[in-house]
């Protein structure tokens, strides 16, 4: 039982980043903009978080350092999202291609900056001031559940909060209604006076902020530094979680938990003797294979927001 609690615990560590990025995807796609660039926005966030925390800990920031890192990560993700929003909403460029560009640019720019800042090094120095696990007083003492759910990094608790908050925002507020209207039928939304451009910008920017937060989470809880393979496909897995979770925050939470489990299993399985017979490569492959199987098998054909992927052209209303 204790082992299972540990497995859930480390699953939630990996899931947190996916939850943030996938929630970001929900806001963007609900507003009608595909965001293949989540990967790049996470990369930007991871880089900025590593740099922000590094300089803050140098300046004697102590416990505040990782939080500064988180803020830097959110800012960097939002910055890349601004580029995405400008190109896809204002210039009406192809959303998929712009997303791919964001991924290429984010990786190139961050590695360029790492080499520039650390004299040609391929990765940032290891951070001392990353997040530590915090046991929530009272709740952490509950047998099994305490260890599984309430003895984790602050970012995981943030994920617990952001899921219902996003659901509330999307389905219980006028803002959410308008955002979804813009993604389902921008022409109709425009007719009743909703500013399509504004809502799409907001949707994409929120997605960038959340993806940046996701990237920061990976650096500050898992890798402790930033290098070329810090993100390695997490952004795309987040998109899969978004589809698997049917564009719904609670669904996203479940899907991200599932993909987080695939990553946690990679480490968990090494405790057992039989793990020695499984080649490493298969363990590395696991999250990607599961993603593919889930998308191909369980989901079948799901329907996303109807207007996602199409630039809004008022003249064709």
């Amino acid at each position, binding site marked *: 039982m204790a082992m299972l609690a540990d497995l859930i615990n480390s699953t939630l560590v990996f899931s947190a980043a996916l939850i943030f990025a996938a929630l970001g995807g929900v806001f963007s796609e609900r507003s009608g903009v595909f965001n293949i660039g989540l990967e790049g926005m996470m990369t930007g966030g991871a880089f900025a978080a590593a740099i922000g925390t590094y300089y803050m800990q140098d300046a004697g920031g102590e416990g505040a350092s990782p939080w500064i890192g988180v803020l830097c990560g959110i800012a960097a993700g939002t910055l890349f999202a601004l580029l995405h929003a400008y190109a896809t909403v204002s210039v009406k460029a192809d959303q998929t291609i712009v997303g791919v560009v964001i991924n290429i640019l984010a990786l190139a720019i961050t590695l360029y900056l790492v080499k520039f800042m650390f004299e040609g090094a391929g990765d940032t120095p290891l951070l001392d001031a990353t997040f530590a696990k915090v046991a929530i007083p009272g709740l952490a003492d509950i047998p099994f559940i305490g260890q599984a759910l309430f003895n984790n990094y602050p970012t995981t608790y943030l994920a617990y909060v952001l899921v219902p908050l996003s659901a509330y925002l999307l389905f219980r507020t006028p803002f959410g209604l308008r955002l979804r209207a813009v993604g389902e039928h921008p022409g109709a939304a425009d007719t009743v006076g909703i500013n399509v451009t504004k809502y799409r910008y907001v949707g994409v920017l929120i997605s960038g902020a959340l993806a940046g937060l996701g990237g920061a989470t990976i650096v500050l809880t898992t890798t402790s530094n930033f290098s070329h393979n810090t993100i390695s496909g997490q952004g795309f897995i987040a998109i899969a979680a978004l589809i698997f979770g049917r564009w719904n925050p609670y669904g996203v939470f479940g899907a991200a938990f599932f993909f987080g489990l695939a990553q946690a299993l990679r480490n968990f399985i090494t405790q057992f003797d039989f793990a020695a017979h499984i080649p490493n490569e298969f363990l590395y492959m696991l999250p990607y294979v599961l*993603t593919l199987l889930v998308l191909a098998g369980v989901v079948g054909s799901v329907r996303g927001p109807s207007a996602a992927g199409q630039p809004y052209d008022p003249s064709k209303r």
Partner: protein
Amino acid sequence: MSKWISSLNQPTALVPAVAILLGLICGGIVMLLGGFDPIAAYGALIRKVFGTSYDIGETMLTITPILFTGLAVGFAFRAGVFNIGADGQYIIGMTAATFVGIKIHLPAFLHAPLAVLVGMLCGGLWGALCGYLKAYRGVHEVISAIMLNWIALYLSTFLLMKFLVAEGQQKTPNIDETASLSIGWLSKAMGGARMDWGIWIGLICVGLFYILLWRTKQGYDLRAVGFNADAARAAGINVKTTFIKTMMISGMFAGLGGVFSVLGVFHYQVASGASEGYGFDGIAVALLGGNHPVGILFGAILFGVLTYGSAGMNFDANVPTEIVRIVIGSIIFFVASHGIITKLLKPLLNRRAANKRKGASADGNAG
């Protein structure tokens, strides 16, 4: 002659040219911000590429895989499929060719063609898998292809480590001499640059791309699906099998890129666990070339020059090679966001149109 010039003046030819210019300017700005001298860096790039016959040969070598992946991506785009998985198809093609090159022993006239064929087919099947998932399981091809890229990478590493790489090594032994597709005399002529059949087969594929798409019934179906899948379905074209066929052929192009990398250039394969990213360059090249084979060829030449030259920038001007990725990313950004460029060019084009009108009326008066 004037017709030729006017075709250059079409916005379609102008947009990529301006995009390249803007991309290079973006790279220059990033270099300036980093405290590097962009003029010196671009100078170093040009010197590196056109310095000696060896460098020209090696540049051709850099162009080859990008040409193949560019053709792969462009071909799929014609059917409205975004093949972001050329990377994985390239790796699978390469791995298959390595296996045939090492494990099977045959006379040269059979061995090399067999290795090419098997590599090409395996790349094609990897692509077809993506097409199947799109056609019959409704999985967005971008997501499935990205997953298949990672799976291909780890699968290839596993297979190489398990069956070909000796204990404690990171790369496979060399392929049999009979499977080699290097051209010895040409290498000698080019100052020892590694010359092989890849670039020449690549040029043949440029022609094949055109014939397949514009001179066959299948190609017609494929383009019809790309224009409007619903209309194509209504007209009796089987859209699902078209997706699979398209991705099969697309994957074959990408697979060939991997095949020549091992049979022509390196003669061994590294089990590295990292991809070389040719698939992503292919996307850039296809977009830049407007998914037309000749455009893709020019795009591949440009990107090959940039990529090979980046080593010179790093060596002479100390600029990190990532700068070239930034330039490439910016170029695709501007091609995709051509709205920006047409906005920028509007005053210029309007003036030209006004001049033309003025000229026409002057002619009219003279007549």
